């Protein structure tokens, strides 16, 4: 059986590397090194203007600023919980900016960067984590579904939506987001099976941030995740998820292929969750501080900044203006969150069905009556 065994490459700690979670170069598509050097890739090139480059930097910086503000608001009791995107900005902005207007994204609960790129008001995202609603933007209008919290379920929705796109003869594509942990869910694998079977125009964008809460990627998969796709009959690629340019190029290519009828692609964006899983989490229980330190050297924003600064594409004034804009954004998010009105209590009855049922209408009426009885101050 040894010949068989050879056939598969097992993820073992790279000899000499200090962490098993560091990118392994041979597979990794990169256009911008951690040091901010622009490099070429034989298959992926990126034609991008200076304006666009500055735009990407602005996106990255602003979503990080938003994230910092949200974390602070949670600490102050204004949000129930917050799922930070810290460290994953490039993966999300690269993917979000690769999308065309008509494309549709299906996020998890962490894709604030993609929400930003799709023009979803951050306050909609805040209202979810505040517990005022479940997001509340119109998914189809924005080309960005509501956050889906049950791990992996959205991958099937994305695939079905893509089957609809096919039937409409439309020239658009669908981007399904998932985490590394999500790849273990049956539904995610079924989504890949359906996507392959129908050659649906869907791209699976997996942010391998090395952890599913406390569980490291090695528990979910013994070989690099992007290799999963070949087993289902479609291409998989691994991109440096901290390199916004590479993510943009790879995602654009995959979406274009999908639009052209070439079916699905699986993208593994190799990145790192620099913060806690959520504000409820305590990562010191399961990972070493040194790992985070190493990943800080690969920070997705620092490398773009270094590149822009060194090449002169952006100057101090630009960086300062982005900082200022970030502070404004943060202030707007803060005040918007604090001012957010609680939803009317009866609203929980009003959207259960498109066509309300008599028993639920009766329950609603009793609810209203019951609460009215307190006005009298009887209890």
């Amino acid at each position, binding site marked *: 059986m040894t010949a068989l065994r050879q056939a598969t490459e097992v993820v073992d700690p790279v000899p000499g590397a200090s962490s098993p979670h560091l990118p392994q170069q041979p597979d990794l598509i990169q256009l911008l090194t951690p040091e901010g050097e622009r490099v070429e890739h034989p298959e992926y090139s990126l034609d991008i203007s200076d304006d666009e480059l500055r735009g990407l930097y602005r996106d990255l910086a602003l979503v990080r600023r938003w994230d910092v503000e949200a974390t602070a608001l949670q600490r102050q009791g204004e949000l129930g919980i917050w799922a930070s995107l810290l460290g994953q900005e490039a993966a999300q902005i690269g993917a979000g900016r690769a999308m065309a207007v008509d494309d549709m994204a299906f996020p998890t609960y962490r894709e604030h960067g993609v929400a930003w790129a799709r023009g979803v008001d951050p306050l909609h995202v805040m209202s979810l984590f505040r517990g005022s609603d*479940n997001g509340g933007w119109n998914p*189809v209008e924005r080309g960005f579904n509501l956050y*889906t919290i049950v791990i992996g379920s959205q991958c099937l*929705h994305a695939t079905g939506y893509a089957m609809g796109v*096919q039937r409409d003869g439309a020239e658009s594509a669908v981007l399904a987001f998932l985490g590394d942990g999500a790849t273990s869910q*049956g539904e995610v694998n079924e989504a890949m099976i359906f996507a392959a079977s129908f050659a649906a125009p869907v791209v699976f964008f997996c942010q391998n941030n090395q952890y599913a809460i406390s569980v490291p990627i090695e528990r979910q998969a013994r070989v690099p995740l992007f290799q999963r796709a070949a087993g289902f009959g479609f291409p998989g690629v691994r991109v440096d998820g901290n390199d916004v340019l590479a993510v943009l190029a790879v995602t654009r290519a995959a979406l274009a292929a999908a639009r052209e009828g070439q079916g699905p692609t699986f993208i593994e964006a190799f990145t790192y969750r620099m913060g806690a899983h959520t504000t409820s989490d305590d990562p010191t229980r399961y990972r070493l501080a040194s790992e985070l330190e190493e990943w800080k050297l690969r920070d997705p924003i620092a490398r773009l900044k270094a590149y822009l600064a060194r090449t002169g594409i952006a100057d101090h004034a630009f960086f300062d203006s982005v900082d200022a804009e970030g502070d404004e954004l943060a202030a707007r998010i803060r005040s918007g969150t604090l001012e957010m009105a609680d939803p009317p209590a009866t609203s929980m009855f009003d959207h259960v*069905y498109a066509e309300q049922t008599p028993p639920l209408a009766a329950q609603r009426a009793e609810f209203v009556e019951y609460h009215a009885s307190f006005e009298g101050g009887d209890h």
Partner: protein
Amino acid sequence: MGIETLTIGKALNLGLRRAMEDDAKVMLMGEDIGKLGGVFRITDGLQKDFGEDRVVDTPLAEAGILGTAVGLAMRGYRPVCEIQFDGFVFPAYNQIVTQVAKIHARSKGALRMPIVIRIPFGGGIGAVEHHSESPEAYFAHTPGLKVVAVSNPVDAYWGIQQAIAHPDPIVFLEPKRRYWEKAEVDTDATPDPLFRSRVVRGGDDVTVLAYGPMVKTALQAAEAAEEEGRSLEVVDLRTVSPLDLDPVYESVRRTGRCVVVHEAAVTLGLGAEIAARVTENCFHSLEAPVLRVGGYDTPYPPSKLEEEYLPDLDRVLDAVDRSLGF
């Protein structure tokens, strides 16, 4: 078409055909529904006439069927998903309960989920394990879903069309052991609304409620009771969620007695909910507690025992006796 004698199976087939003709967004999805026409032939001939894009043989994965149906619904389609047998709906349970049922509320009404989940349900066909289940209570306990059960060709023909045209997700239960029962269907008639129960036989002594395959059993019991001089009023619930119990309350206020019949296990079956509501609404009229005739609280047994497990005429009459003797 006018008046035709149809089986329940054929009525569903024609109803599906008509729904597909009426609305190009209607799609059928499921296992073996294409060339084979489904294991019960309910979709017979539809793929031939509407093509593989509208009658889709899916990979063998129920979560996949329901999950992609969600995406298709978001894109404006009206997916009608066939679950091959009741016992195979459970792999799709997560999609049904956490997604299909909740997306309208989650999106504050921005997204509709006009998905029909067709399930041939119930026992009595001599099948192996998992082919005779009655999972309706699981769905009726889930806010966001609606659940209907048809008992005859007329409701099958119209009900499937109404369900497909409805904006909310509907679990559509088909009484598989009655697929071959016939009745006249007037395809030009104006159908009764979907979410209404119906008194199918008038009576004065005891109100008997049933839905799906048990309606026939209840009617047989009523006939047998008549010979013994007892007059049963039989209500076909038709809608399992939401329940339409006003006609039932009216009836029970007259009869003072109520028996609920279903195949599902009695504990936390629909009978429990109906008993609670009828008691609450007719407390002073009841001369006996609401009695329940259902499957026992055991897994559905091997088919050699299914006749012992399933409510039948005698068990309904026994409950009627007990109610009258209270």
